[in-house]
């Protein structure tokens, strides 16, 4: 629920600011938001690494199975999306 509230609040504030600010101010704000997003993404990627270090021995023990699961999760949804898009747009 918090995730949805944060997203909607962001969109509302962004829309209101987009209307209230001049183009120059809007560009400046967009640049600041872009840099902030970049910083937060880097911070979260570091934290994910930190969290995963707790279960690294477990991942290593699982070995091949983990590799298989990661490959499946990265390829199957992408390939199916591509196939369904092709069929949808062709029709």
């Amino acid at each position, binding site marked *: 629920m918090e995730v949805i509230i944060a997203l909607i609040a962001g969109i509302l504030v962004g829309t209101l600011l987009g209307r209230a600010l001049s183009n120059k101010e809007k560009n400046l704000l967009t640049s600041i*938001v872009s840099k902030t997003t970049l910083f937060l*993404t880097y911070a979260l990627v570091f*934290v994910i690494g930190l969290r995963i270090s707790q279960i690294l021995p477990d991942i290593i023990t699982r070995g091949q199975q983990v590799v298989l699961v990661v490959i499946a999760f990265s390829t199957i949804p992408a390939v199916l999306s591509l196939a369904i898009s092709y069929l949808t747009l062709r029709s």
Partner: protein
Amino acid sequence: MLKKLESSRLALLFAAGLITGLATNLRVGEEILWTTLLCLIFAVGLSMGLEINKIASMSREKISWGLKLILATLTGSLTGGAVIYLLIGEPALKYSLAISAGMGWYSFTGTYLASIDPYLGFLGYLSNILREVYTYITYPLLAKKLRYSSISLGGATTMDTTLPVIASVGGSEAGIIAFIHGAFLTLLIPIIVSALAST
């Protein structure tokens, strides 16, 4: 939004987090993780709100193509999650669906699922970052044969990190459709992933 992200830099940061965790036993509290994630979501919403006029000014035809692609990407990704569960049997169906519903947004999916279980976070992060990598590698080849359908491959990343590749290979029209596709998926992913994982 995240054009400056480089896969190598992300890999280094991820490795730095792993090494720091192993070497120092440093732990990050749930509140800090959750607050940072909510700040990221708010910032993404803010940048979408600032660009809302850009989307509204796009032609109806391109919006319609973008919406069809969104539906197809969503259906394909969720079906993929269900297929993986049927084939491998792990993790639980709701988490399999949540991981595949990340559609390339690794920082959100990885962090959100890591707050439930670090192993799920690992799967959510790695499989979604790989989806972005596949898009970089295969889009130029696929776009020649499949045209706009190949935008689906990039999922949510088509509004930022993979947009330059799509626009340079597929042209400005593909770029506009990719932006609409990525923007709406970015809006939907937090809602779908959190709904699926919390059921």
